[in-house]
């Protein structure tokens, strides 16, 4: 299992890096899906089976597909990005990478400076998750539902582009 963790971890990291650096948006997304799948493996190894499943289904499956969909719709697969981005200019990425590295270093410092001895990980069954979701976190689920509703209403409103008449406020523009 440990091996699986490491392999999955490495894949996740590498594919995420690829996802972040690819100039072709579709490629990037595909790498990201790989990354999510690897992350799902990690989650599985960590004992969160239910979460691992959700990671695959919702993240890699639903959300990323949404992204792909939009990219396809806008038809900005490679060219737009390529034309404008000069990728291998260090100026572009060195600062952010440095910052992220520092942040990672700080977090590593914090993680590795643990006064408590290494704890063991245990499996959390989907059942317990389900039970707590519908007992203790019932209100949370409600709120999440409202949140989704808000998201849907928002997306619905923003996605609406049918009429061509302009808003009165914007006629001047």
């Amino acid at each position: 299992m440990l091996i699986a963790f490491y392999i999955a971890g490495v894949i996740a990291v590498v594919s995420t890096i690829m996802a972040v650096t690819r100039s072709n948006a579709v490629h990037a997304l595909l790498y990201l899906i790989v990354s999510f799948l690897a992350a799902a493996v990690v989650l599985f190894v960590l004992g969160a089976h239910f979460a691992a499943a959700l990671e695959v289904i919702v993240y890699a499956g639903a959300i990323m597909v949404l992204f792909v969909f939009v990219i396809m719709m806008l038809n900005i697969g490679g060219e737009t990005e390529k034309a404008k981005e000069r990728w291998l200019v260090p100026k572009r990425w060195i600062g952010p990478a440095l910052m992220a590295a520092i942040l990672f270093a700080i977090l590593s410092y914090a993680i590795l400076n643990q006064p408590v001895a290494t704890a063991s990980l245990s499996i959390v069954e989907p059942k317990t998750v389900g039970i707590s979701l519908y007992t203790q976190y019932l209100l949370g689920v409600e709120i999440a539902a409202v949140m989704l509703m808000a998201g849907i209403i928002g997306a619905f409103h923003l996605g609406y582009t049918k009429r061509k008449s302009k808003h009165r406020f914007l006629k001047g523009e």
Partner: protein
Amino acid sequence: MMRYLWLVPVMPLLGFLVLAFFGRNLRKSIITLIGTGTVGLSALLVILIGIEFLTSPPAGNAFTLKLWTWMSSGGLSPSIAFYLDGLSLAFIFVVTFVGFLIHVYSSEYMRDDEGFARFLAFMNLFVSAMLILVLADNLALMYLGWEGVGLCSFLLIGFWYKESANAAAARKAFIVTRVGDTAMALGLFLLITEFNTLDIRSILETAPAHWTPGSAKVVWIAFLLLGGAVGKSAQLPLQTWLPDAMAGPSPVSALIHAATMVTAGVYLIARNHVVFELAPIAMKTVAIVGASTLLIAGFAAVVQYDIKRVLAYSTISQIGYMFLALGVGAWSAGIFHFMIHAFFKALLFLGAGAVIHALHHEQNIFKMGGLRKEMPVIFWTFLAGSGALAALPLVTAGFYSKDAILWYSWSSEKGSLFLWAAAFLGAFITSIYTFRMVFITFWGKMKTHIHLRPGRAMLIPLVVLAVLSIIGGFLETPHNLGHITLFSGMLSGVLPEVHILHSGAESTELILQVLTALTGFFGIYLAWHFWMKKPGFLFRLKQTRAGAALHHWWLTGWGFDWVYDLLIIRPFTWLSNINKNDIVDYISIAPSNLVVWLHNLTRRSQNGNLRWYAAGIALGLIITLTIALFL
């Protein structure tokens, strides 16, 4: 009668108020009536009060009339109160009487001026202020009069205000005397600190017990008061304003800058004689100031060609005599000289005024001449005044008053040979410049057409004053010449007797008198010789470089103005000009500039770029974590 003392200063004040408020709407005769009448009434009142005072003296030979408490705080409570004794009586007599004469003179002299009412109003105000000065029972009130006369001097010097030069002269007079006044004010503060009162009598009574002679405090006080006196009386080193003050109309010069105000310093010192006697070094300084002033002013007078400036320097010089007298402790001699000087100097100024008036505002003596025959009354009265000024023996009042000073500067225990020598030399120069002026003006050829002849209102005061310049001296004569002591008798209760060191040296006195008389005549001869008979010598002297320099040096009053200009006025105006916009302002604007600078700096961070913002947040996160974890 004495309870009407308050009316003495109030009468002219009323005159002032009436003229100030309604003067422009009144007819000239009424203006004259009010302007001279109020002073005349005052003079009358003074004479009545004087008679009562002398015939039935009040208790303690002094009379106090308290009107109201001026300000009372923490024990210090100066009042508006008048104090009459021999000294103040002498002064108010001169002020009202000479003042009245000068008012009468002015009523004709200034009649055609557009500011006639204003002139008389100011003159009235001056008389009132001067009377308050001398009648004040405390130093605070005296300070009121002191500043009041300064103000009137300012207003009257600048009476013809449209000329910038006149305004400048007025300003100069006010500011220079104000320097002295400030010193005097400090003296008053020190007196308050010491006694918590400004009441002159109580100060004088308690001072001898309060201080040991020569203690630091009293010396300081004496010097500070002397500062005030020096300023007002145009003595070294604050004498520079008086020659310029001649910018005012001649009656002003006569009244303020000869007869009364400029002698306020003498009055101040005489009034506070106890303080000065407790500070021998201050006394000595007074004497030295007087001696050196009389010399410096005398030399300056010799080269002046403006008739009024000659008289102005002569005034400075004569007041120097008074200071000398005070300095050697000859108090009453000083005061006596003040009175006589008031007569003859007022006379001279009025006479000069008449000449100037007649010659169409010509003041340069070298453009006059030969007026002896044209204006006989003026000539004779002027001659009488000049005689008094030059102290021609026996017949002029000036002889008696000046002789006393010369004698005491020799014989007093505070006197010395040097002081006498200075005074003697001064007397010699006096006769030179006096008769230089007389000869140039009245002898020789007519150079200017006579424009206007003085009328009765101008001549009567001249005659009266001329008479007084002659006979005034008989109030007080040396003991080898009749020994009349009417004047010093009046002052005896107020001022101490002079302590004579060389007592019994009657022969010395006589020798000195004769010497003085002879030098006086010698001076007249020299004046005749150099300016009438052989004017070429002096002309050639002036051509030489040293002669020219000396001439210029004396003409400009020994260069005091130049020094003050260099040391004080220029630095001050320079500072004012470079710091016109207040350097502190720049400092205070700095923070706001800093904020704007920071604004322009930080503004760039809000560039609208999303990635930049995200980076900002990441950076913020790093900073936050760093602080939290590592600080």
